[in-house]
């Protein structure tokens, strides 16, 4: 348990320390603390999860709301998957930021002080660890709002007009979800006197659905699902490592984590819940895939694709509520596969922008001869995302499809998901060929090939990780499959 507690504490400590340095040193400290967090979380995951299906530690007990409220941490297979995602990508994003946040950045030069940037990123890592290791909904809510706050501050980091506007928009939209979360908590507590994940089961039938729907609405705002999905594409004004981490790998995963956790803890959710989750996710997938075709900014395409893939994960969970374990496991499996692949994609787009100063599809072309590493990263990420075997996305997507066809009610969802997959594939492969192959454009010819070592290192590591992510996720998903 020490390791889990240390995983939670280290990022906060690091955040405070790196805030006091204004120059490059703050980046060094941030990298150091992210690395320590990574080590502790790995020790935690590999020392305990393989021996115990679920471990809970009670830390502090205090009296609140006329009952003994216990602040406690837990670790099971789902938490482990999320911990791996958060701390591993977190470390590489911080490492990447060390190279990216520099005045040499051709896309948008960043000047000192960097202290607040690293402070927010590390604070965010800590909050995410808090969300995934929490044992009850109240604790989740506490950390949940910290992530919203960090997201707001990081999106508006450059402080120009669009950035502050987008930051505010993201903050308001996710906070609307947060308010629903609060209402759900109040309803839950008044009726069952408990904040446990499994407390929903003990509610009367009528309020069960309402509480679930409110929590799901909170999750869907966080995960940029219909109807509150418009903040995510706008949030792309944030520095690219922030987009990669908050808006692809980690923060938006908090929402789907919550839904998956509710599903795992409450085996008797009604079919209405499943229909709600399924319809919202499928609708999101359709909208996002149509909007792919009207984007010419690489980061925005990735943003819409993120929205669609969070839809995939939720679809998997919805199929799970309908009764197909395979589908639910596919959804959870997709969390890790998508996280690594999308993180990789964002970081490679960031590196492209760093070198060429552009993220526009029309301005870029023929990158592969000058930047083979970036092309390899983007292509691997792309094939993982669109689900070309043997890359990672295929496995989880295939499980979701399989699950969808197991139950006659979800066949429609499955067909739509397959259709989405085809459409997304067409646009991605078109963009991949357009941007990386062909004759180099003016911007690419003029670009300086000086990508910092820290960016290269994190790209290569994530490239390897996204190739092997099915192998990383497999034992945990397998444990989860047998574990409940």
């Amino acid at each position, binding site marked *: 348990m020490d390791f889990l507690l240390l995983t939670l504490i280290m990022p906060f400590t690091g955040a405070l320390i790196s805030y006091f340095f204004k120059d490059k040193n703050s980046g060094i400290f941030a990298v150091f603390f992210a690395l320590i967090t990574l080590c502790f979380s790995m020790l935690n995951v590999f020392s305990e999860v393989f021996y115990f299906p679920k471990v809970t530690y009670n830390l502090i007990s205090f009296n609140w709301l006329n009952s003994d409220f216990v602040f406690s941490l837990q670790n099971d297979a789902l938490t482990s998957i999320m911990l791996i995602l958060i701390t591993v990508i977190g470390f590489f994003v911080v490492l990447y930021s060390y190279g990216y946040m520099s005045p040499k950045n051709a896309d948008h030069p960043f000047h000192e002080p960097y202290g607040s940037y690293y402070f927010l990123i590390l604070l965010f890592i800590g909050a995410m660890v808090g969300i995934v290791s929490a044992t009850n909904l109240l604790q989740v809510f506490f950390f949940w709002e910290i992530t919203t706050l960090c997201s707001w501050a990081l999106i508006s980091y450059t402080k120009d007009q669009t950035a502050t506007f987008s930051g505010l928009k993201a903050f308001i939209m996710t906070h609307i979800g947060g308010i629903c979360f609060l209402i759900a908590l109040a309803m839950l507590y008044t009726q069952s006197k408990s904040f446990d994940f499994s407390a929903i089961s003990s509610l009367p039938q009528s309020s069960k659905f309402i509480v679930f729907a409110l929590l799901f609405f909170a999750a869907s705002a966080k995960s940029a699902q219909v109807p509150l999905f418009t903040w995510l594409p706008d949030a792309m004004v944030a520095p690219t490592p922030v987009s990669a981490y908050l808006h692809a790998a980690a923060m938006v995963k908090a929402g789907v984590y919550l839904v998956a956790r509710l599903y795992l803890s409450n085996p008797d959710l009604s079919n209405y819940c499943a229909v709600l989750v399924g319809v919202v996710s499928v609708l999101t997938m359709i*909208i996002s895939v*149509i909007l792919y075709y009207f984007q010419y900014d690489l980061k925005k395409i990735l943003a819409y694709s993120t929205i669609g893939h969070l839809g995939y994960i939720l679809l998997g969970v919805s199929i799970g509520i309908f009764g197909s374990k395979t589908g639910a496991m596919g959804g959870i499996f997709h969390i890790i596969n998508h996280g690594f692949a999308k993180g990789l994609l964002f970081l490679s787009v960031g590196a492209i922008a760093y070198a060429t100063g552009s993220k526009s599809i029309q301005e870029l072309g*023929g990158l592969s001869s000058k930047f083979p590493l970036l092309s390899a990263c983007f292509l691997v990420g792309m094939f993982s995302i669109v689900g070309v075997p043997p890359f990672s996305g295929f496995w989880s997507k*295939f499980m979701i499809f399989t699950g969808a*066809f*197991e139950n006659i009610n979800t066949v429609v969802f499955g067909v739509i998901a*397959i259709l989405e997959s*085809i459409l997304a594939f067409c646009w991605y492969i078109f963009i991949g060929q357009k941007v990386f192959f*062909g004759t180099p454009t003016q911007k690419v010819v003029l670009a300086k090939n000086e990508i910092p070592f820290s960016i290269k290192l994190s790209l290569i590591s994530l490239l390897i990780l996204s190739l092997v992510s099915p192998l990383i996720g497999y034992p945990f998903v397998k444990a989860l499959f047998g574990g409940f």
Partner: protein
Amino acid sequence: MVYLYISFLALLSGALITSFIRNKFVSGFINFLLTALSSVCLIYVCADIFIENKTLEDKLLSLTPLLNSSFLISLDALSALFLLIIAIVSFCVSVFSWKYLNAYEKHSPTKFYPSLMLLFLSCIGLVSVKDLLFFIIFWEFMTLTSWYIVVFDKEKKEALKGGLQYFITTHVAAVFLILAAVILYSYSKDFSFYEIKKALQFIVENNSVLAHFVLFCIFIAFVTKAGILPFGFWLPNTYPQPPSSASSFFGGVMSKLAVYALVRFFLSVVPLSFHTQVWGFIVATFGVISIFVGTLAALAQDEAKRLMSFHAIGQVGYMLLGIGVGLYFININPFLGLVALIGGLFHVFNNAIYKSLLFLNAGAIFYKTGTTDLNKVSGLLKVMPAVAVTAIVGSLSIAGVPPFNGFLSKLLIFESSIWASQVNECNFIVKFAFIIFGIISVFISAITLASFLKFVNSAFMGKLRGVIDDKRDVPFSISFPQMILAIVCLLAGVLPFIPLKIIYLAVSSSLDISVPAFSTVFSTNFAGVSITFSEGISTGAWFPIYVMIFVLILSLIILGFEKYAKSPKREVETWYGGKEHLPEEVVYTGHSFYQPFKKMLSFKIGSIKFVAFYPVNLPSIKISLPYFFIKLLHPDLWLYYPLAKKIENFIDFL
């Protein structure tokens, strides 16, 4: 079985090693060495299976409980037949590539060899697995690696276009396969072919519509890859793009693997029933469409590799015709069905050999002249006689001229489709259709000959033109693989009983009904084979050795006359009817061939122009959505921003 793993590992390690070597010579050599190792291992495995007629099975890894699927390797004679093809062609291709890649001076070999070896690997995997999930994985992996080879020349616009068309079309087709797989899984709860067969049996008995839908998905997925028209429209734009050695593997093996998949599914996975008959007829129909359009369109092509790509379409049509007839009759008339299936698969084998040979020929032309446009080269016989001779062998084989290998397989296909008229169990319309199919395919066979006459004539005969670099001679490593393939063409044609026996094993091992014994269908001896379509009546025979003896004697006599009769020879300049012409003006180029024919067969529908039934200018697709629909998808514009504005006004008001 160990040898199969050795070949897997050899290719995998080769792909890893070559991705770090930038020296063309070294990485080509490593590629050659490891592919040779893998080919030898594969041939050993095949020999083992053929001689003892056994099935090797091994389960490597299991995904239960997440998905009931396992990496089930199972080699029967059908797999072994295709492993043999892969072994031969991949060896030849890698020998050829070694020096051939020097023709692409600006390109690094790291873009080529790793993906080529992974392509070999995925092909081997594809024919070895008997589990649908892993089948799909290898299938898609094959598409992926071959796509990367297609876009090898990344600055060439046509290559990118071809690659895009190829990847999107085949991926969409593969999604149909995935759809079929998940539907079947919902019944079988297991991805192994054995369980799926049981599930399909259940579906066929209880839900005929669903069964047809599943078969439709499978059919679409495979014929798209095979290049059957109209689904194979991408093929002529794609196959000419990569370096010829890779094109040769595409045309020789990859499109044949789609036929393998079709045969594997319809023979071993789909239970024999009325559905098999229906789909057999559909397969044959599409086969004939491809034969007709593909081959006719080939006649109008002036670019060697594009011409061969159209023939790839046409030739796959022959295979599908044979297989379709076989599927239709295997249940009601096993003799006829068996002969047709054997004819189809024999054609697969033959085609794999001569189609790779012809693409390699085109590659050799490119190596010497820097182009494969038949209008720009001619007379290459003088500078590369070995290539020319092998090209002639390949052309005669593809046209089905005896004694080369294409003859017998085509004969079996023609005969079996026409013999359908003698089967009492099927109705009049079907009989009539099969006879028409047979007649069309015989007719088109002549067209094939015509179009390859054009190829051989304009590339190798006449005045020498088009050589850019006199010093760049065709090295032995380029002509050697072509010789191997040409010899295989000749041997399979002259000694047909060996391939026939192998293919009989392949068909009988993949069917689970008892089929007539080999000796009752074919009576063979060293000289040839006679064929039986129904019990006890011999209906055809082909003894190439006897024919060849006479032909040889005749040619010896003619040679003798020429050598010893001392007939005078004189060389004069060509006489142009008394007028003076530049040599360029009077050359009979590739474009000049069959002009009246091309004019006769070109027509317009709307703004689309067709030459020989194949559209030459397709309008580009433009998708647009109405503005209000796009606006609907952005709730910011019509909901959130106005709402925020209203709230802001309200607060101001307060």
